[in-house]
């Protein structure tokens, strides 16, 4: 892709995303009740979490189950830094920095682990973080949580928070697309497609894996900050270790490694079931089966389907939109 071609398509995509965000901001409050606006807000936060998961799992192909831990670290970090007297912007940056640092600390020793070993290690980490949040009462006030967090004073104002969240998510989305198309993005995809071949073209895969952990952790931390801004109170049960599987399910059904997939997956998992409350168990049972079917037969997920339909209409290649991450390895 020439640099020109890249910028042009990026520009179109940016317009589309910003347009969609503005439309949502204008239309949703007209049609949704206060309750459903909050659901929409939470959906946006989940989109952010899954976008983060995209880096390490979708792009990098590394099985990290620690996303909920970074969510919690970001939320509690932001809260505690405010309690220590820092103004909101500083506390926010600090919380993201802490998440990123923890991400590096986790990434570095796990470099040698693969597959199920890495999965278990990150899951164990998530469990440990949750237990610390619950039991380290001196720091976190334990299971009671922390209330009356000032934030930017919009806690509970679901419609105004909608705009804030739409802005943040739109930026995070575009950032991911931008990274995915530059040299870094190609390095990441090379790592996922074939780690040995990536090394053969000069990619330092150890450094890259750590970078992915850090970026994923930063996105997770940002999501934590958003949650605090939205709710004004936090408690450890929001960041339970089991919730990490939810984010994984969203990522898979949406399409691993696809920014659009993060949006679709989060909407399907968070928003739609609220509309179908009466049959939630059926819905999630089907969702679980969808995870199996998608990963087996159509790893590009829902976003892959949507984009294929779109491509056959427009017949133009969009490199950032391709999302078939788990291609099956066969002998040449």
């Amino acid at each position, binding site marked *: 892709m020439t640099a020109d071609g890249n910028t042009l398509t990026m520009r179109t995509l940016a317009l589309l995303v910003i347009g969609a965000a503005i439309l949502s901001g204008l239309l949703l409050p007209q049609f949704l009740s206060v309750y459903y606006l909050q659901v929409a807000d939470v959906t946006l936060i989940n989109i952010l979490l899954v976008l983060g998961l995209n880096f390490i799992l979708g792009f990098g192909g590394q099985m990290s189950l620690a996303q909920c831990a970074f969510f919690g670290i970001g939320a509690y970090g932001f809260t505690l830094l405010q309690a220590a007297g820092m103004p909101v912007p500083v506390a926010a940056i600090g919380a993201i920095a802490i998440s990123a640092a923890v991400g590096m600390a986790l990434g570095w020793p796990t470099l040698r*682990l693969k597959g199920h070993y890495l999965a278990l290690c990150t899951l164990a980490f998530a469990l440990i973080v949750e237990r610390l949040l619950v039991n380290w009462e001196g720091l976190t006030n334990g299971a009671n949580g922390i209330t009356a967090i000032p934030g930017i004073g919009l806690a509970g104002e679901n419609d105004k928070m909608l705009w804030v969240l739409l802005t943040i998510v739109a930026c995070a989305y575009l950032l991911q697309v931008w990274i995915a198309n530059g040299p870094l993005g190609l390095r990441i995809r090379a790592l996922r497609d074939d780690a040995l071949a990536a090394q053969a073209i000069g990619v330092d895969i150890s450094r890259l894996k750590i970078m992915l952990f850090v970026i994923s952790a930063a996105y997770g931390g940002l999501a934590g900050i958003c949650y605090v801004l939205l709710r004004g109170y936090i408690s450890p049960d929001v960041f339970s270790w089991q919730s990490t599987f939810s984010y994984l399910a969203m990522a898979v059904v949406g399409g691993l490694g696809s920014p659009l997939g993060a949006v679709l997956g989060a909407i399907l998992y968070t928003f739609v079931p609220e509309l179908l409350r009466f049959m939630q168990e059926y819905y999630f049972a089907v969702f679980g089966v969808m995870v199996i079917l998608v*990963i087996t037969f159509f790893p590009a997920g829902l976003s892959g389907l949507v984009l294929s339909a779109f491509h056959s209409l427009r017949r133009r290649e969009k490199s950032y939109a391709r999302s078939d991450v788990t291609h099956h390895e066969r002998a040449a």
Partner: protein
Amino acid sequence: MLQTFIQIVLVGLAVGAAYALVALGYTLIWNAVSLVNFAQGDLVMLGAFVSVGWLANRLGMPLWLNLGAMLVILGFFGAALAWGVYHPLRNAPQLSAIVATLGLSMALQNIAVIIWGPQPLNFAGPLGTTSVQLFGSTIYAQYLVILAALAVMMAIQHALFQHTALGRAMRATAQDAEAARLMGIPTARIIAFIFAYATMLAALAGWLVAPLSYVSSDMGVNLSLRAFAATILGGFGSIPGALVGGLIFGVIESAGSFYISSEYIDVIAFGVLIAVLMFRPQGIFGELELERP
């Protein structure tokens, strides 16, 4: 002092026995087809629900008798899993298989709620809260039943694996499926049997722990995690490792909870696990993956 210690160890062993049964399932499936079945704990949950929720509550079969029926049902379910989940993914990268079993776990939990409702089930079992005196300490009789069941199961398994043609075929398939086919072994069927057997082990664990506490749809996830940790502790791929790993993990939890801290026990236990992963990922009995020419 000593009484307490013995009690703690016995309880730890009993809980560890449940972990061991699940860990064995992980190991057998891994050895056979290089798949880590993250839904193994949910199979425990299914076993508990089927025996308590259906056979005991609906059909009125007492817990003791329904074991056989439940194992058969779950055995068939396991074989169905081999066909429906493993078979399509047999050539897929590891990531896909892990994700698929996680999807299976989610589906099973929700299906359990659909079938048996959201409330946890309580079942006292024939032994109820009977306690026995052993070495001067008091423990639930059910714990002894669990330990005895594990011992009996290991004896049966040893006889099966070492002294029958089927057992030989299973071991051969696990070591080299293609070579096994060259010998005329119907590997697809053997693999289905291995899945069925591993599922029955998990279901047995469910039947054994059901009387100890509530049977709920999310009880499996916790078990999966701990049994998985136990498997790695013992050495992934090693059958004695699964056994020993499970028992040791149970004792670590029991002893750590009492002697160090019951709130931070998970932090300790899983901290130990992370340390094992960092410094000795092959666990106690496992083998390091060496460079191959």
